[in-house]
């Protein structure tokens, strides 16, 4: 069977799709200067509108998505993306960031209220909605920590950022981008940060410690108040990676736990769509003593007017152009208003219930659970002895389900991290368990079966080594 064509392979010279307004006669070369004109036109697809539609519709059919498939990816919070959010976002799509602010008061009011809502949810005092992704929010947060220490004359002295060895890769990468040296703190046997090792690593040379709670094993750091105290006593700041906020919405707040800086992932907890990899949104929140360092612009209310304020002399600066991923801010705002305080609290309750339900049922099947106690919204498991996580994951694809997160966190061998979220029914969870059961049965009967999986997907296991050794990163047009 022939390869699925690229749009360039459906292209035929002279084919036209959409028709923009006609261009009036004028001297283009005169206006732009002959020397500035392109000699060779770019090789772009020439397809009819129907060919275009067939191509991208068929491509969509070669893609898993939450709308069609169960996606229990640990640390990603793949919950349902409500369609009413899309309806709301459409109402604001045509706004230009440079239109007169008096003509965009609705947009500015939305951002102002969202800043407040996120403070209420997290227990922080001020928020910037600018950062475009979690990692971007982390960078803003770490830059603010830097600015804080510099303002107190301790910038030179505090060169180290601590992260747990189970941390998500963006944490150390971000700290390095902000000019810090990264040191790891070990996880203890309980799966939580080793408090003694933490205390030993803490000191006047430490700028900050980056934590997430629950941590990347899905476990609540029970001694968080003590950790916070130890960090603050040494003059260091506490950074909260908000990736796992879904577990604690309405139950406990990072601000109350002692965190000084928080970033949220609106594309996780607050249902803005993942879009196949982005755009995300990573607002960053701080306690009052850091508010002056927030990235600009910040939305303020002055009398009856909403104003985007850029003139903040101690701000760490701009993280990106314009206001942020505004379209996603609308979606998150819509979700928060839809659920309200009680609704958000129910989110964490059912997220945690679903995750524990799966943990118990997977254990019954023979999966190993290294931390066998009540977990939060996600948990880590390992396949039965002798099976590889990768093979189990690939075999699940044949059952129409997306595998769990694999090989993260790095501290557990053959790790599988599973997060069902609150929007899945028990029937779906049971079907997932059944599918895994079938995979295990197949593996027992025929050990090689798993190694060759998947069998039913549009393409099967890929040669990733070849892709890296001989990179082909764009279409090679036939010359001549």
């Amino acid at each position, binding site marked *: 069977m022939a390869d699925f064509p690229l749009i360039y392979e459906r292209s035929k010279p002279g084919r036209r799709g959409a028709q923009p307004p006609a261009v009036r006669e004028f001297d283009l070369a005169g206006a732009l200067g002959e020397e500035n*004109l392109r000699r060779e036109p770019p090789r772009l697809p020439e397809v009819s509108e129907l060919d275009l539609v067939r191509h991208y519709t068929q491509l969509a059919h070669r893609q898993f998505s939450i709308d069609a498939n169960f996606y229990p990816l640990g640390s990603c919070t793949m919950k349902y993306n409500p369609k009413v959010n899309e309806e709301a976002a459409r109402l604001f799509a045509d706004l230009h960031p440079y239109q007169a602010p008096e003509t965009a008061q609705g947009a500015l009011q939305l951002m102002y209220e969202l800043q407040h809502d996120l403070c209420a949810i997290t227990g922080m005092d001020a928020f910037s909605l600018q950062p475009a992704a979690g990692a971007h929010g982390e960078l803003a947060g770490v830059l603010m920590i830097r600015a804080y220490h510099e303002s107190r004359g301790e910038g030179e002295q505090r060169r180290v950022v601590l992260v747990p060895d189970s941390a998500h890769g963006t944490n150390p990468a971000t700290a390095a981008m902000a000019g810090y040296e990264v040191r790891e703190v070990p996880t203890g046997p309980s799966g939580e940060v080793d408090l003694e090792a933490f205390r030993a690593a803490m000191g006047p040379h430490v700028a900050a410690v980056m934590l997430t709670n629950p941590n990347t094993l899905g476990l609540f750091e029970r001694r968080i108040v003590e950790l916070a105290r130890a960090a603050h006593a040494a003059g260091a700041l506490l950074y909260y990676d908000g990736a796992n906020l879904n577990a604690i919405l309405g139950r406990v707040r990072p601000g109350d736990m002692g965190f000084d800086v928080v970033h949220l992932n609106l594309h996780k907890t607050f249902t803005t769509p993942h879009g196949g990899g982005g755009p995300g949104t990573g607002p960053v929140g701080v306690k009052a003593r850091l508010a002056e360092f927030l990235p600009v612009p910040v939305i303020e209310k002055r009398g009856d007017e909403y104003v985007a304020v850029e003139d903040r002399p101690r701000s760490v600066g701009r993280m990106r152009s314009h206001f942020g991923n505004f379209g996603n801010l609308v979606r998150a705002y819509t979700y928060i208003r839809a659920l309200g305080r009680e609704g958000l609290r129910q989110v964490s309750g059912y997220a945690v219930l679903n995750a524990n339900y799966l943990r118990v049922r997977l254990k019954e099947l023979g999966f190993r659970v290294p931390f066998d106690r009540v977990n939060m919204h996600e948990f880590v498991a390992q396949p039965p002895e002798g099976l590889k996580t990768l093979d189990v994951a690939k075999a699940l694809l044949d059952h129409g389900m997306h595998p769990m997160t694999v090989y993260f966190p790095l501290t557990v061998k053959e790790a599988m991290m599973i997060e069902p979220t609150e929007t899945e029914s028990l029937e779906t969870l049971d079907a997932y368990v059944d599918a895994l059961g079938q995979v295990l049965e197949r593996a027992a009967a025929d050990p090689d079966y798993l190694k060759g999986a998947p069998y039913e997907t549009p393409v099967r296991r890929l040669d990733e080594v070849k892709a890296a050794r001989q990179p082909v990163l764009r279409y090679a047009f036939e010359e001549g």
Partner: protein
Amino acid sequence: MRYHPHTPEDERRALETVGAGSIEELFADLPAELRDPDVDLPPGMDEAALLEHMRALAEKNSTRGPDFLGGGIRRHFIPSVTPHLALQSEFVTAYTPYQPEVSQGILQATFEYQTMMCELTGLDVSNASMYDGASATAEAALLAVRHTGRDRVVVSRGVHPETRAVIETYLRPLGVSIDVAELSPLTTAGLDLSDEVAGVIVQQPNFLGYLEEMRRLTDEAHAAGALMVAVVDPLSLALLTPPGAYGADVAVGDGQTLGNPPAFGGPTFGFMVVRQELLRQFPGRIVGQTTDVDGKRAFVLTLQAREQHIRRSKAKSNICTNHQLTALMATINVAALGPEGLRQVAAGSVERAHALAQRLAAAGFAPLAGSRFFAEFVLPVALPAEEVRSALARRGVHAGVPVPEEYGLGDAVVLAATERVSDDDIDALVRALDEVGAKRPEAVARG
């Protein structure tokens, strides 16, 4: 509203399996003194009330009326087929394609995107998109520093002020110095480059709308051993000499003009395309082509060892999420238009902008039309720029991106025109500018 499906029966069954008496019990690990805080949020709403609320907010915005807003974001023609295809739920609600066997849709579309960006810019390798033009430019500055081992960058004042601000945010913590190359008066003058300069960053067309001499500036950068980073409007590349042709090492910019609505500034997407030699230093996700066990062509995320989830503190960047969906929208839009359609959109914008400038000159205004411009140009005005913009808005015309003081042009605005602008729109703008007293007939002399 609620999106969890659990009935009381479901809840009972799940709790029984888990061996807990209530959901509250599952939160026993939380410190008692911190539990169940007061969260100051209004109660939830049903869908009808929710949409009413959102409409009421939207009604406090106004977008109707002739539009001449630019500054890097413009409302171009986007055929209906573009959002119809890009917003299919399989593209919208998919995750990052880490399991390629079930993600060929996103992966192939990204490969097509990468190809498109290489064709437009004339360079060798594109990543799968970044957050926006400003942060992509900052990352390009970091790439130049990594590649050359030097610690200064030179940025033209013609680069968008917000982009320059973001470059500063990214480079300051790493101790990299930034020198600004001045405009004289509307385009970048000669660069005075030491051998400490890692990269030179110039925008084409620049923030004021004018065309820079990219070939000359690139040669100057290379003579000093520095990289040339070209910040480009991708739509302009349908007509203008691409960065690869004048020897640039990196092309970055914001992709909004290729087919996303203005969306109050976001999400759009950033792009980065580089010479082959810079591949290993290059941040961001990349999709590559390979085969599966049956020999079928397939696409996969590759060269991941550069990225944060593998290299952690030694990654080329901390970037994880990209701007996949908005990049997809641009890919589909360019395929919908084809090379001829894209050319039309670009050429139409150039023609309308020049028609506007001529009409203004004929009406006694003094637009700065001496230097070549693409689809945006500067109009000196007799009142502070923000006042002009507000006064025009009161008359139902959206125009007048303020030119900041740093350009030394006095009170001035940037005007843009896209292919959608009609003769009536132009008349309305000219009339409105006159009525609000914005006319400044004398030419601006800049020392």
